[in-house]
């Protein structure tokens, strides 16, 4: 009987250590997958460093990596439309083809902004018919995606379901504490805090309860309502979460180079509206932003879009540490 029990325990242990091999498109997705998957998964992203996730070429090496994957995670909303299908077809991996359980669009778990309600043409520039794909720049979406990924991993790797649950709880605890402050989470609970924040009455509710915001929500108190420009339409989710207002983009339309006429308009708008910062993605030239900033007395603030795009942005939560610090210093 003892021998049988020993074999069962060994068998369970062997099964429980079975890994999911995960390949993601972006580094922030890889970070969330790693935080939620823990030791039960191996994760890599095909986009590393400061690269524009819209403009990646389907390199054959990506195909080889996806060929051996159990799970492929993309952001979706056509962010990867230029290369995802070519990578999947080249990988010839039935487990991660579109529509298979191993293929995940993270945006399916997120709330979506900028969703066009009418016809869409390329006259609007590099527009995304399903909505703005920069969903991960709201930590609330990162939270929802983390939960969604944990559920998926539990379906695909039942032996490690409890481990994914533990990792998810740790991820949510860390994210919530970073967003609101550990003391505030202990006092009010993360559900209430997110509810107030989503409803737009967070600060007032906290004040009515004799408390002050902590974490990122406390550090960015001064950015609420401040007008800014951005280079590309990357920041609607970040703006919605932290309350600054993106007055316009340096790109006249998504994906197009800034034009002299458009920059002149921005200079007028910036002077009229008192724009104090231009939020800039790290992979675009700062030449146009510097020009506009010098004319309107604003700062150019390079904000990382994803993990690994700035010193210290080593995982999804540290990414926001960097973003919040840079925003708070600029505004």
């Amino acid at each position: 009987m003892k021998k049988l029990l020993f074999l069962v325990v060994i068998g369970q242990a062997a099964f429980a250590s079975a890994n999911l091999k995960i390949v993601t498109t972006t580094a922030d997705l890889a970070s969330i997958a790693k935080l939620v998957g823990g030791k039960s998964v191996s994760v890599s992203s095909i986009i590393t460093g400061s690269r524009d996730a819209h403009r990646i070429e389907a390199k054959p090496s990506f195909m080889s990596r996806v060929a051996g994957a159990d799970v492929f995670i993309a952001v979706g909303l056509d962010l990867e439309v230029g290369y995802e299908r070519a990578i999947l077809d080249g990988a010839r991996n039935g487990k991660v083809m579109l529509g298979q359980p191993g293929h995940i669009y993270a945006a399916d778990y997120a709330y979506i902004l900028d969703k066009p309600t009418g016809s869409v043409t390329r006259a609007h520039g590099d527009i995304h018919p399903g909505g703005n794909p920069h969903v991960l720049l709201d930590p609330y979406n990162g939270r929802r995606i983390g939960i969604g990924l944990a559920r998926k991993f539990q379906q695909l790797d039942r032996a490690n379901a409890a481990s994914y649950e533990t990792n998810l709880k740790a991820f949510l605890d860390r994210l919530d504490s970073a967003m609101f402050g550990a003391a505030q989470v202990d006092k009010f609970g993360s559900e209430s805090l997110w509810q107030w924040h989503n409803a737009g009455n967070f600060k007032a509710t906290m004040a009515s309860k004799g408390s002050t915001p902590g974490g990122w929500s406390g550090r960015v108190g001064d950015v609420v309502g401040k007008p800014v420009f951005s280079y590309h339409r990357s920041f609607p989710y970040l703006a919605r979460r932290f309350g600054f207002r993106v007055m316009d983009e340096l790109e006249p339309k998504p994906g197009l180079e800034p034009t002299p006429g458009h920059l002149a308009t921005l200079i007028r708008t910036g002077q009229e509206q008192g724009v104090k910062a231009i939020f800039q993605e790290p992979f675009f030239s700062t030449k146009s932003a510097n020009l506009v900033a010098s004319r309107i007395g604003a700062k150019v603030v390079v904000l990382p879009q994803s993990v690994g795009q700035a010193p210290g942005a080593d995982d999804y939560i540290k990414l926001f540490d960097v973003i919040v610090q840079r925003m708070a210093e600029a505004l």
Partner: protein
Amino acid sequence: MPFTLSSSLAAGAFAAAQQLIVQDPPAPVEEPPTPTVQAEAPTRSRLSDFNPQISLVSDFRSRFANSQEGGEKLSELKELELGLAADVDPFLRAEAYIAFAREDGENIVEVEEAFATYSRLGRGLTAKFGKIAGAVGRVQRNHADQQNWLDYPYAIQDILGEEGLKAPGASLSYLLPGDRFHEFTLEALVPDESPIFMGSDNGKPVVIGHYRTFFDFSEDLSAQLGATYAQGPNESTRSTLYGLDYTMKFQPGSGNAWTFEAEALWAKPGSGAETAFGMFAAGTVQLSKTLFGTVKWDQSEIPGTDSWRRGWTVGLTLRPTEFHHWRLQFQDMQTNFGESRRTLDLQFQWMIGAHPAHKY
């Protein structure tokens, strides 16, 4: 007992998390952004989702040449390429590319490619059936809108055909397992006409084998190396073809990219015949976000003859978006069988619809 406890904890957390997932999107912190596009009819049939992805590529050119052989017409709509692609069912994907072109002053319609691919065979295999671009080198398998110059290199035109080797047949491709990319392709094609392979209509196919591997030297620098072997009928005898292709790309996250691409072909049109050699080497540099400069060297010997041609090409491409470009190209061609010429071409190319992703 601990198992039960952890299970119930997990179940509780699962239920709580499920509530998180199903809750409505968050209420706005501020007013929702104004929709970027005007609204129209709120509902439409989703049956249109089953329509194929359609693309159209237009290639309009103006040519200025210093000889009569440089071109028949100053300006012309060189080609319209219609592309259709869709999943046939969960197993099969079909693609077709139909060209409406001008050739020798006449309008023609030609099916450039029309094939269906099984990508889910498993074990790293894909199978393709239909009219396909043969797995010879790299450049002739890419569509014209992906080239960094106007026409196919001399070596491809003179050895494989003006539009490369595109023929009906079957293709089986195998991707080796592992992190390093190694791909083997085996094909049997029956071309109607090709300078090196002729007489395939007797039922004997051209057999092509291609191998390619890929190197990631760094995040920014990568290269692909390929080798080709092909054998097929050439009237009463058999032709043999060997090829090497090499592509290197520098693609930084920000800053200017460059590409080097080169191919060499050795073609022996039957036993006893001299081996014809053709090659090209080209470099393309991104000069600004939208401007690209290209320099290319071409040379080829025409199989079964003593004829050869070679020349330089210099081009400048303005690409405001990935969907259209203007290209100015100067070419100086020397030959021993006709009039050498210098040509200056202006190309205006645009693309609408859902064109498939460009290959490496």
